[in-house]
Every structure is written in structure tokens, then in C-alpha cells.
């Protein structure tokens, strides 16, 4: 009976959390929104007015449709609700059109589709079982996980202020991960296949899904020492998986193959014409690489190693230019980034194959894939860090070691999202929400693992604390100095380089912890 009461209490708290964050999202409706708002309005208009055959050709607006077909269908479905709010937003020529009804509709569509995310979080929380039974509901791992996911700072500001539809996409991803953890493999595979055709950025984590499914679903048994039993290969399972993937792809891309538009769709989805880094450098390896190049350039000029006339001009204006030309270090081609990413992902995938750890191993591999591609990918957005942060939350509430990595990665990753919101009214919101999330994640994880050694060592603590002066310098002191006119990119550069250090460190630490870990399956067998 007590267990029942506890479960009822947990349900009540989960409901309160989900409701609370939804109310907060509603309050954010009047906040600033970025050009992505117009992007999605344009897609609504395109999918509403044009036949399928022109979706990927229409180019009235510069924000052409560059998501896979399922997302286009999703916009099409939304547009049939949108017409009751304000039909004018569905006119393709109405570039940059806004009205109260348009804003309400678009914002509400994000909030409404987040229901899927909430459901996914609910399922994830069921997968997490705390070892120690605490009476206090606030200190249960499932409760902490629910807060970390539902109230995730990055997701809140990217979706509900900046404006994007990441909520339900991450919902799909978490749901598929939860299904895999619950051993409902086919369902998980189906969900992930659907997700891939909603937004192709998730292809970064596809290796983890592929290998895990192959290893634990297609091969049905292990040897006693945990290594693979080759004879347990199940043809039926492989056929089922293949069928699911092919069916979903056929549903999504089939019409375009029939129309002979596949090359056009592909060229829209993978625009390699863009530069190595986004206008604002995502805090990854290339940010460090660029910064190193710049430092070497300045150093070379000072010591007269370099000829000032030979230096391309764009390189000195820094992050403001899309095409960044390196002066000292070799320039980076898309192929190079692809190879780097592949090499970075490889060890984690090997680990998943040779040292199966069950669902935990899968999640670790998932996070490593996401982080590695974030580190080395071509034209990575800073928002892509969420792809690593959200699955890592699942791990963080289960082991102290992962919790430490999680704290470093979330704090730096979220901090690097700050430049997304640059308007003065949103400054307090982003700081308050960031503080809210950071204070909660630190204090809750600390109390969860209070019996184990401290989550962060002194160096990591100092590194994280220094984010505060950095923020004060970038947002308050720097705009008052005369440098603002000549070097407007300095705050962005500082932020991205400083955060890149933390992200790289977290990536390395996670990799080391995964590679050095012993296989637990063997211990269980004994």
C-alpha cells in the first residue's frame, strides 16, 4: 500500500512538473523570436499551397525547405489548423509576416507538440530505477531525471524563445531510446526511422542505434564471457528491421523518387556550400582550431614571420564572415571533417560491439556519437549540443562519474547557447533560467550522490565558476568599452573558445571512462 501511495505521489509530482513547465512556455509567448519563426511560417505556406512536386523547388523566400519530407508533412498538417487562426500567414509571398494570431499559433504549436516530449520523459523515468530507496520523493533519481529533461534550459530557450520544433523531435528520440531500454526493439527502431525522416541531423547518432540493434536484437545470445555468439544470428529479426527501415523510407522519400526529384531533395538537405563554422562558432574542435589559427597569425605578424600583404582580409574580421579562411593552419574541407567525425565515432562503436553493457552502453555510445559529430562536424550549430546533453541526463542520475561529466557538459553547453538570445529584454530570462537549471542540477545530483566522492575536482570547479566573470565581461563590461566598435566579435569568440575547452574536456573524459570501463556482463555471469 505504501508503494502505491509513493507511486501516486510520484505521478502527482510529475504532473505538476509537466504542467509547470508548460505554463512557463506559455508565459514566454511574447518573447523575442529569431528568423526561424519566419522559416517555419514559410514552410507552412509552401506545404499548404503547393503540390508535393514543388515543395523542394519553391524558392520565393531565402528560407527554402531543407528538412526531410516527414517534417514537411508535419508542417502541412499544421497549416490546416493555421488557416483558422490567420489565413494570411499561409501566403507564400507574405515574407516576414507576423500578427498576434500567427505568433500565438506558432508558439502554441510548439507547446502542444511538446506533449510527445513529456510522454517520452515519462517513459524514460520508468526505465531509471534507483538502487537506494529514499523516502523523499525529491531525491529519487526518476524525479531528478524528470526535472533535468522537462526543464532543460537549452530546450526551453531554443524552442520557446528562439523558436524551433526540437521538443517533439527529441521526444521521438528519447522515446525510441526508452523503448530500446525496455527491450521493445522493433518499436524503438520504427520510432528512430521516423525521426530520421523528420530531421536528418539525427543521422549523427544512427551508428549507435544500428550497432546496438544488430548486437542485441539480431544476435539473440552471448557467450558466457560476454563475447558474441555468431550462431545465434536471427535472420527473421534482421528482415523485420530491414522491412521497417525500408517501409518508413519508402513512405517518406518514395513520392520524390517516383517524381524523380531525389537529387534535388538531397541537395536541399545537405547544403555543403555553407562554411566550416556557423556565423557564431559552435564550441567544438574547429572553434579551437580557428582560434589557434588566429593566435598564430597575430603572433606571426608580431614577430614578422608572416607577410601582412599575403594575409586574406576576411580572416581578420573573424566570426562574422561565413567563409573563414585559415592563414597559418591548413584549411578544412568537408571531406576532412567527415573523416575526422568517422574516426572519432569509431572507438565508441567498437566499444558497443565488443563490450556490451546493455542499455547503459547503448546510451553511452549514443552520447559519444552525438558529441563526436558535434566536435568535428561540418557547419555545426551550437544547438546540436542538446543532442548529447539530453541522453546524457539519463546516464547522469545513475552513476556519479557520469553525473560529473554531465555537469561540465551541460553548464558549458548551455552557456554557449547564450549568444542565441541577444536582445536586452531576454537577458534576464536567459540568466535566470540558466541559474535555475544549474542550481538545480548541481544541488540535486550532489545530494543524490552525497555518499560518493565529490562530483567535480577543484580544477573543473574553477573552470565552471569562471563562466560568471566571462558572462559579466561579455554582456555588461565589453559593450561599455571602446573596443565594441572595432572588435564586435570578441565576446562571441571568447564564449565559444572558452566553452569549446569545456566541451572537449567532457568529451575526452567520457571517452576515457567508457573505454576503460570493464565489462559488467562478465561479472554478472560469474
Amino acid at each position, binding site marked *: 500500500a505504501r508503494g502505491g501511495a509513493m507511486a501516486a505521489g510520484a505521478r*502527482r*509530482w510529475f*504532473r*505538476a512538473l509537466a*504542467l*509547470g513547465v508548460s*505554463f*512557463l512556455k*506559455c*508565459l*514566454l*509567448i*511574447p*518573447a523575442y523570436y529569431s528568423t526561424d519563426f519566419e522559416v517555419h511560417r514559410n514552410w507552412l505556406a509552401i506545404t499548404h499551397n503547393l503540390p508535393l512536386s514543388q515543395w523542394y523547388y519553391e524558392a520565393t523566400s531565402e528560407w527554402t525547405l531543407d528538412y526531410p519530407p516527414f517534417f514537411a508533412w508535419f508542417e502541412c498538417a499544421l497549416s490546416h489548423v493555421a488557416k483558422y487562426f490567420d489565413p494570411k500567414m499561409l501566403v507564400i509571398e507574405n515574407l516576414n509576416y507576423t500578427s498576434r494570431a500567427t505568433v500565438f499559433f506558432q508558439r502554441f504549436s510548439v507547446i502542444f507538440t511538446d506533449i510527445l516530449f513529456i510522454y517520452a520523459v515519462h517513459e524514460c523515468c520508468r526505465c531509471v530505477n534507483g538502487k537506494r530507496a529514499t523516502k*523523499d520523493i*525529491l*531525491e529519487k533519481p526518476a524525479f531528478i531525471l524528470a526535472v533535468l529533461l522537462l526543464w532543460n534550459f537549452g530546450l526551453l530557450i531554443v524552442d520557446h524563445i528562439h523558436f524551433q520544433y526540437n521538443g517533439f523531435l527529441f521526444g521521438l528520440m528519447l522515446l525510441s531510446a526508452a523503448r530500446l531500454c525496455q527491450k521493445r526493439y522493433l518499436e524503438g527502431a520504427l520510432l528512430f526511422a521516423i525521426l530520421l525522416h523528420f530531421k536528418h541531423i539525427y543521422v549523427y547518432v544512427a551508428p549507435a542505434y544500428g550497432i546496438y540493434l544488430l548486437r542485441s536484437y539480431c544476435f539473440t545470445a552471448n557467450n558466457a564471457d560476454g563475447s558474441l555468439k555468431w550462431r545465434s544470428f536471427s535472420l527473421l529479426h534482421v528482415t523485420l528491421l530491414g522491412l521497417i527501415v525500408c517501409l518508413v523510407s519508402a513512405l517518406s522519400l518514395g513520392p520524390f523518387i517516383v517524381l524523380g526529384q531525389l537529387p534535388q531533395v538531397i541537395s536541399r538537405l545537405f547544403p555543403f556550400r555553407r562554411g566550416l563554422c556557423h556565423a557564431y562558432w559552435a564550441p567544438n574542435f574547429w572553434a579551437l582550431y580557428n582560434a589557434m589559427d588566429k593566435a598564430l597569425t597575430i603572433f606571426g605578424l608580431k614577430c614578422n614571420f608572416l607577410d601582412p600583404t599575403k594575409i586574406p582580409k576576411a580572416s581578420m574580421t573573424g566570426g562574422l564572415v561565413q567563409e573563414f579562411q585559415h592563414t597559418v593552419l591548413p584549411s578544412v574541407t568537408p571531406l576532412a571533417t567527415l573523416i575526422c567525425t568517422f574516426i572519432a565515432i569509431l572507438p565508441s562503436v567498437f566499444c558497443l560491439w565488443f563490450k556490451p553493457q546493455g542499455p547503459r552502453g547503448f546510451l553511452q555510445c549514443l552520447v559519444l556519437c552525438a558529441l563526436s559529430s558535434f566536435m568535428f562536424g561540418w557547419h555545426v550549430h551550437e544547438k546540436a549540443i542538446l543532442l548529447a546533453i539530453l541522453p546524457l541526463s539519463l546516464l547522469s542520475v545513475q552513476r556519479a562519474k557520469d553525473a560529473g561529466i554531465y555537469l561540465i557538459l551541460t553548464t558549458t553547453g548551455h552557456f554557449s547557447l547564450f549568444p542565441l538570445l541577444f536582445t*536586452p*529584454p531576454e537577458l*534576464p*530570462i536567459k540568466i*535566470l*533560467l540558466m*541559474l*535555475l537549471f544549474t*542550481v*538545480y542540477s*548541481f*544541488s*540535486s545530483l550532489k*545530494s543524490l550522490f552525497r555518499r560518493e566522492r565529490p562530483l567535480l575536482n577543484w580544477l573543473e570547479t574553477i573552470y565552471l565558476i569562471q563562466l560568471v566573470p566571462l558572462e559579466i565581461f561579455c554582456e555588461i563590461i565589453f559593450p561599455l568599452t571602446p573596443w565594441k566598435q572595432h572588435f564586435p566579435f570578441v565576446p562571441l569568440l571568447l564564449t565559444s573558445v572558452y566553452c569549446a575547452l569545456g566541451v572537449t574536456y567532457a568529451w575526452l573524459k567520457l571517452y576515457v571512462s567508457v573505454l576503460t570501463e570493464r565489462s559488467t556482463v562478465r561479472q554478472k555471469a560469474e
Partner: protein
Amino acid sequence: MEKWSLMTITVLLALTVRWTVSLGSYSGAGKPPMYGDYEAQRHWQEVTYNLPIRQWYFNTSENNLLYWGLDYPPLTAYHSLLCAYVAKLINPDWIALHTSRGYESQPHKLFMRTTVLVADLLVYIPAVILYCFSLKETSAKKKASIRALCILLYPGLILIDHGHFQYPCSAVTLGFALWAVLYLSYDWYLLGSAAFCLALNYKQMELYHSLPFFCYLLGKCFKRGLKGKGLVLLTKIAGTVVVSFTVCWLPFCTDTEQIMQVLRRLFPIDRGLFEACMFSSPPPHSQLANIWCSLSVLIKIKNIVSPQTQLKLSFAVTFLSLLPTCIKLTVQPSLRAFKFALVSCALSFFLFSFQVHEKSILLVAVPVCLIINEIPFMATWFLLVSTFSSMLPLLLKDGLLLAYAVTTLAFLSVCVAAFSIFEKTSAEDLQLKPFSLSLKGHVSRFKSFPKIVRSLFLLSVTLMGGLSVMSAAVHPPPRLPDLLPVCVSVTSCLHFVLFLVYFNVVILWDSKNSRSQKKIS
């Protein structure tokens, strides 16, 4: 988790909600020639910065009192002056004499919103935090933060301060009053009375609370013996009050005409008592949940009774409704009774006195927040009604409907989650045990009481929700343009009268019976 990190999270959450509400519109945005309360606050900054103190409250060629003339006590004026100095640093245009009238811009809105948030953060929020920690309880430590969250998320205050825009009204005044209660709960009478004087000098409406403060302190003095320690304490308190008033009014003490003029501005008796709100029945402007306004729907009091009699009538009724509580408090001054008395006295004033402003309901609501711990169910109910009653028409006008709906629902769900209010509807939980015991001979069926209360609550919430939706969405029939506002005000007035009865019952049947009961058990 440690209690301080929980409290930090609570405060951050409260601040986030406040700031997100303030992203919305404010009163009188883009509505010349008079604009709204926002412009009033800006205008006061302009006046206090540019004119010498002697002219602040006088109608001169430089200072047109008909255009948002200063009509709050000196502390408000000083606060405006302080803000004006900051404004001057940022952009002198914001407070330029005459030319800045109706100044509106995005940076200026940001500035004004920030001043409110800072005032809130400095005065009101610390008081709430300390109050929640001060409640002595043996139960879990996290209770304090949850209670603080409920109090800080009370939508009425957030919407008026950060949405509609007004700070003398709520954050600062009520914050000072809260500090006074806090000091009194630690038995620091002098600090308490000084804090209350500050509140009073910030906004004259704080007089609603003055009687309980007076009676409580007087009762404490009586208790110590009127001749010995009690007299000394009384003298000390009186001295503190005089000193704090003198300090606040020092710049105006140059001649009596100054003081008289300020007083005339604060209590504009010559302006005609009844023009304001009391009996004025054309409701579109001021449809109030006041008893007189509601009665005027049925009887046109204005036509029957002369203005002089109206004044006497309202005075008499107010006095009578206050009397029992005050006597009880003076005779048995306990902290609990004091908090309840704050509620019931303010509510009496709100219902029966003249020249009531719709935002005055906040003066009742904040003391109710203080007793949310003891009667969670009734307090939540009252706070919901208070938000609904007076704010709805105001917020509709300001275009803050979304914020109103969201914050109210959020508040309701926090209270439901935190106190599980629906399980606390028995007579005991409503503090009605002594009363029901005394009625036992007459009323036999008291068993279904919790159920009845619950269904009443649901009925009332449904009614309020329905009226809110209708006021927002439905156009009233042309023959009865004021149908919905009248419905809103009559509904809430009915609620308030019942609440007044309830609070009085709780106060009057309190201590003696419950104490004897404890002895028996």
C-alpha cells in the same frame, strides 16, 4: 537537497515568472492623452527630479496636478526621485520636464520593468523568504520553500506589479508591511512599528492594516501591566512612530501649509467622496466588488440617501464590522489572531469603506498569503477569487489576458500539488472545529461538510473560469453592455462577504475553545 538551494530555486522561479509577465503590455500603452499607471510613475520621476520639493504636491504652472499629480505619501516620491536619478544617467529624455510626457520606447519599458523587479527583489521577496523560514514547524525542511513558492507565485501581485505596472501599490508597501509582521513575530515591537510606519508612508491605503497593528501592540502593552513595563513599551512604540513619521516628512516640515497640502492630496475629501467609486453606478469605469457597488445594482443608493448620510452610513458599517475583531485582538493578543485580524480588517475596509480602489484587494490578499499554511484550502480559494474579482477587467483592458490565465492556473496547480488542498476540507482543517462544537446542539448533520465545501469550491472555480472566458470572448448584448462586469463584481462581492463571515467566525471562536480542547485531549 539543502534547504537553501531549494529556496534559491524558488526565488529564481518567482523572478523568472515576474520577468516573463513583464514582457507583456502595460496599462495605458499607446493610449494618449492620459495613458495609464505606467505614465503616472514616469511622470512622478519627471516631477520629483525637476521640481524643488516644495512644489511636488502643489498645482503650479510647472506641475499640473490634473495630469497624474502626485497623490501618494512622501516615500513614494523619494522612490521616484531615486529612480529618476538612474534614468537621468541612462537617458535624460526619459524625465525631461514637460517634453517627456507620454514617452514610450522599448528601452524605457525595460528600465521601468527593471526598477519594479529591483524593488520587488529588495523588499518583498526577502520578507517572504524570512517569513517562511520563521514559521516554527517540526515537519520537513522543504516545506518552507514550497510555502514561499505559493506566496511568491500569487498571481494578483505579479500581474499588478509586473504586468499592469505599479510599484507603490504592492511590492514595496506590502513588503514593508510584511517586514513589520515579521518583526512582530520575533517580538521586536519597535522595529515592527517602524517598518509599518514606512509602509504607511509609502501608501496611505496601508491604513487598512493599521487597526490590527494598533490593537495587537496595545494588547501586548496591556498584558505587561499598564503601569509598569507596559507603559514604558507603549511610550517607546509611540516614540518610534513619531520619529519615523518625522524623518519621512522632514522636508515638508518647513511650514504647515506644505503638510496640509500633502494631506489634502492624500485624502482628497474636497474632491467629493462619492465620485470615486463608492456609489457611482455607471459601471464601465469602476465596477468594483465592493458591497456598495454591488448593492447599487439593486437599489440606487445614490438617489435615496444624501452624500453626508452615505459617508456616515459607510463609516458606521465599517466600524461595526471591525469592532469584534479588534476587541478580541486587544484582549487576547496572539500572533495567530493578529494575522487573521489583518485579513478580516482589510477585508471589511475593502467591502464597506468609501473610495475603494480595485487594487486594494491586494491589501487583503497578502495577509491571506501569510495564513496559507494554516488554512490552505480557504486561502487558496480566497486568493483565486481576489485575482479574479478585481484584476479581470483591468487586465482585459491592458491585454494581459494570457498572463492572467497562465499565472492563475499555475498558482492553482502549485497549491493543489503542495498542500493537497482537496484533502483538507474538514471542519478541523478549516479551523472551524470550535465553532462547530458550539453549534453541536443545534446542527446535527455535519458529516458531509467536507464534501459540501469541496463541491462549493469547484462550483465557484467553474463560475469564475466561465465568467473569465465569457468576458474575454463574448460580446455582451447591446442592451446590457455592462452585463459581464456586473456579474463579475456581484459574484466576487458575494464571495467576499462569505469570506468575511468565515474569517470573523474563526477569529471569534478561536483561542479559548481550542486551548481548552487541547487540555482535554
